[in-house]
């Protein structure tokens, strides 16, 4: 069994020996093999202090200097596409420069609505529960390409802290249908890798039992459907769809796969965040392996939650809460926010390292064929703005990287649309159509 901590050391040296992507069709002809594209959304909360985040622009797009907060990504500089405003004047924090989230309501609303970020649509209330009102882009893509892998998508998190409350709900299968992030690595392992271990006989017995139960349940759902009022059937159908997805995993061929050891990280008290580094490492390991074994091609990594009050004593030396810091523009607090942001950047950099270490079927690396979108629900935490959003793209998959792309008045819906299109999904708009003018140009 491969110990988690050793996994990437192993991968670093022995990666080429992995049965990488063995589930993919391999052509024996001389035709060039096309690798699948992948999409990863990487989320961190609470906005950023602008002067510590945005790069310093040079004479050309390629000529830029990364800021303190983004400097841990320097080693992936050629794989970055940083997005920001042209001619930004910090005195006008609400001027529509760079990329703006336009579907934010004008009425006082808190500003941390997570359900707008990947949907491009305002939040709505569903029988008293506030939720996103359109599918998120990862799910739009998963719906188009998800049938090619055991998991249409994976939703991972670290210290999301449960799923109650809109600030924890990033991913929407459809309007009002949120998908929870799995923020315990052992639960991710159980979902993705548990069926890949054990002797073939044991696996088959276990799968047969599960299939028997699922068959039985299909009968019960069908029977219940006939008894329900027509107006309730859509809710039941959403359950049947979910059951089919689960069932698909019981029948899908299991790719040969290097299965890591099951993570074993003790849960901490709700206010003790000292396990955050270990949890993020574990989730990044698992996701990289899930890609290596082609278990999925679409994923979200949700670090904490919108308006998160995580604490980073291991960085800042204090017990101050992240959200509280984000509301304070004193130099001391801004220093701490910059430290936290740089640390998030380092985690992302580590994840990109992992993807760069996995050979893909086309002879390149998984990173070359993955679009990574680092997103935040807010721009400036003190003023709760949604103008000049601190968005960073990374990886490949058609992106023209190694650039700092400065934009004028761009809509975040257009960025979402461009990403969906780049993933090969042919749609005309994402979220609220009134904020879409067409796919954001300049990315490729």
């Amino acid at each position: 069994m491969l110990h988690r901590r050793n996994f990437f050391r192993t991968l670093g040296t022995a990666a080429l020996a992995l049965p990488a992507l063995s589930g993919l069709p391999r052509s024996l002809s001389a035709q060039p093999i096309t690798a699948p594209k992948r999409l990863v959304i990487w989320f961190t909360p609470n906005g950023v202090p602008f002067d510590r985040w945005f790069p310093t622009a040079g004479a050309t797009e390629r000529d830029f200097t990364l800021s303190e907060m983004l400097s841990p990504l320097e080693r992936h500089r050629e794989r970055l596409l940083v997005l920001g405003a042209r001619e930004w004047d910090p005195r006008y924090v609400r001027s529509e420069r760079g990329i703006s989230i336009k579907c934010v309501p004008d009425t006082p609303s808190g500003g941390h609505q997570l359900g707008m970020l990947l949907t491009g649509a305002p939040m709505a209330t569903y029988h008293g529960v506030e939720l996103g009102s359109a599918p998120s882009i990862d799910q739009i893509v998963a719906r188009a390409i998800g049938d090619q892998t055991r998991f249409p998508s994976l939703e991972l998190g670290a210290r999301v802290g449960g799923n109650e409350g809109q600030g924890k709900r990033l991913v929407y299968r459809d309007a009002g249908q949120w998908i929870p992030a799995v923020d315990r690595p052992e639960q991710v392992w159980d979902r993705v890798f548990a069926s890949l271990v054990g002797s073939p006989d044991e696996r088959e017995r276990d799968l047969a039992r599960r299939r028997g139960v699922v068959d039985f349940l299909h009968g019960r759902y069908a029977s219940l459907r006939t008894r329900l009022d027509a107006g309730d059937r859509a809710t039941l159908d959403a359950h049947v769809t979910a059951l089919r997805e689960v069932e698909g995993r019981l029948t899908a061929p299991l790719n040969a796969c290097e299965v890591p050891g099951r993570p074993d990280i003790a849960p901490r008290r709700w206010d003790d965040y000292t396990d955050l580094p270990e949890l993020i490492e574990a989730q990044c390991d698992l996701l990289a392996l899930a890609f290596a074994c082609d278990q999925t091609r679409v994923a979200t990594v949700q670090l904490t939650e919108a308006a998160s009050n995580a604490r980073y004593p291991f960085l800042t030396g204090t017990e101050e809460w992240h959200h509280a810091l984000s509301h304070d523009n004193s130099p001391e607090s801004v220093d701490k926010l910059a430290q936290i942001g740089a640390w998030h950047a380092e985690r992302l950099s580590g994840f990109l390292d992992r993807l760069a270490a996995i050979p893909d079927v086309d002879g390149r690396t998984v990173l070359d064929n993955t679009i990574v979108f680092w997103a935040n629900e807010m721009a400036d935490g003190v003023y709760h703005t949604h103008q000049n959003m601190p968005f960073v793209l990374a990886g490949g998959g058609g992106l023209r990287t190694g650039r700092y792309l400065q934009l004028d008045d761009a809509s975040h819906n257009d960025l979402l649309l461009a990403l969906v299109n780049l993933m090969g999904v042919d749609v005309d708009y994402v979220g609220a159509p009134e904020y879409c003018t067409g796919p954001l140009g300049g990315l490729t």
Partner: protein
Amino acid sequence: MRAPLLVLLVACSASIDDPTGSPRPEPTPRELACDEGPTTASTPLTRLNRTQWSEAVATLLDVDATEVAATLVDDARAGGFDVGRGVSAVHLERYLEAAASVAALADVARLVGADTPTDFARRLARRAWRRAPTADELDALTTLHALGDSPDASARLVIEAIVASPDFLFHVEASPDAAPGEVARLDDHALASRLAFFLWRGLPDDALLADAEAGVLHDTLETHARRLIADPRFELAVRDFHRQWLGLEAIENLVKGETYADFDAAVARDLRASIEAFVAHVYANDATLDALLTDDTVFVNARLGALYALPTESASLVATHDPNRRGLLGQPGLLARLGKPDQSDPIHRGLFVRERLLCQTLPMPPNDVDLTIRPPEPGASTRDRFAEHTASEACAVCHRLIDPIGFGFESFDGIGRFRTTDEGVAVDTSGEVLGAEDASGAFDGQPELAEQLAQSATVRRCVATQWMRFALGREESAADACSIDDVDARFAAAGGDLRELVIAIATSDAFHHRRVPTL
């Protein structure tokens, strides 16, 4: 005029210009004609919430299912109460895993007894699904039984399948003979379930199922309701209601700063137990709204007693009296929950009264205001620092509805200890409730506020409404107004008796009827 169902203080608009300080309530859409037959709103198809799932499994299999229930995806929250809504593959997987886990916990030999496999399946399914299984369903369960490679494994497979079934997971309610939008009587089986899941949080028992099967439950409803609340299992419902209404789970997670060095995890746990003991005490004695809001009992053990100046040597919680505190809003646990790590919290204390006791909602602060408050320092009272913060007109428009209530709690610090000075300044506990109909008026200190609220019909109706949300698993809407009127009138006529409130809800039109959902 009856109090509006839910006063949305629309952007707190009118309040600045209006010298009476009365915010304009949103006009209620209608005065429903309450004499033209039952009215109610639709409840969306909902699963058991986690508490209900756990209770149902515990009764069904005689196991402690709490830990397994904790692995299910969190409930959504509607109107402040847990509801089993939302679905994804992750939700479904957790239900499947949980069903297998509780099947593994069950003492199969004892559960099956001398039954044949089919009889066992029939008995368990009837209980779990709150109705007799059909012949097809029994066939399917028998087929599944045959998949097991031992009698024990077969029985567990049957248990797993029954617990994973939608008929177990959902609150199944349907009206095949009524058109969409029509209001119809609940069928007896659905009514048996509603009643048991309301008052016991769990499955209906044999007596309820027998009346449901005989088709007489609508006639025996009140008798059953009285029987259920006389059973110790009703205490779980009381605890569960107050946990959600008052947000009590937050108490045991409280963390305070260096200002309150004596406040640790053990104190936080004791405080949660203390307020639960207070609620249980009220229900075990007077069980009136007045007692809930004004009884001066506080439960302390030696640790809490030392911290809150209510000395006792007892290691376990004992009742004591504190003339400085009245009722729920004087409980140290709640005041600590509504306190900042280093100081009191007038804003959240005021908001709590607005939302939980007056059923009023206030808008969020504007996106562009500075939310930081000057930190505590000697000579500057909390009241003064907070007043500076919300002095601007943009803030005051709403905060005048919040802060003057919260300032009345200033004799309690950030962990709910009684005090007479704050940073060296004598505390000023004068306060005022604005724009809350008969709950409005000036007061001085928490005990006076408690009396004022306890005498208010607005508060009484709000408490009735909160219980209604808990009973129905959804927010009320305009179509429920007649039922709420009726429940509130019975609650008032019973002198604010909380048990009669529960009976009134269980026998209200909104409870034993449903509106057929539209497409």
